[in-house]
């Protein structure tokens, strides 16, 4: 029996405001993506129903940090 995926859409404008729905998983198109640069390594998974995103999760792994450059001035 196909797993049922619960969807809860409360987004503003995207994809569209809709009440919570149940979708049969076999009807959903699942895609995965990845971004790897000097700032982050990010992966995401999207599920689409009739071309429209109904579920999307992401994992951002930060690489870039913030730096305070400590300076001790010389006496002249």
């Amino acid at each position, binding site marked *: 029996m196909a797993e049922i995926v*619960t*969807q*809860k*859409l*409360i*987004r*503003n404008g*995207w*994809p569209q405001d809709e009440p919570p729905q149940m979708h049969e998983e076999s009807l959903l198109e699942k895609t995965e993506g990845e*971004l790897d640069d000097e*700032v*982050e390594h*990010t992966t*995401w*998974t999207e599920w689409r129903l009739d071309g429209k*995103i*109904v*579920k*999307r*999760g*992401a*994992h*951002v*792994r*930060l*690489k*870039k*940090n*913030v*730096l*305070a*450059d*400590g300076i001790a001035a010389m006496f002249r």
Partner: protein
Amino acid sequence: MANTQAMCTAFKVQILNGSHAFGAQAANGVRTVTTKDDFYIALYLVTATRNATDTVYNTTGELAGTGNYTQGGQILPNTVAPTNDSTTAHWTPSGSVTWTNLTSSGAFDAAVIYNNTATNKNEVSVHTFSSQSITSADFTLTMPTNNGTTGLIRVA
């Protein structure tokens, strides 16, 4: 309007004033700080303008408190005290943070760290990443390796 990765300038001043405790310092010998502060992390929309001029946490541009997001964000795990590699001091949260079954109120690309123990919830830093929109799923933010090269907050 954009978010810019930065260590907040006001925070740098506050470091010199001894206003933040990322770790307890009972055996430090400089000043006894037996209780470290609680640092939180909050998510901000791509339309926000968070940057080095920020001084305190506020909800301007933060994700709305809907879809399993609570404004103010989450406490950062902090079991590893600041330390140093050679001449660079560094601190990194000791674990990831996850917003479970999140539906974001819009696309977001920044996380702000602030001191929730401080009276004014003073802001520490802004960290940017690629724009993300989350729908009915988890969003996890994993911290960089805690060392003098990649630690999340460094003083060189």
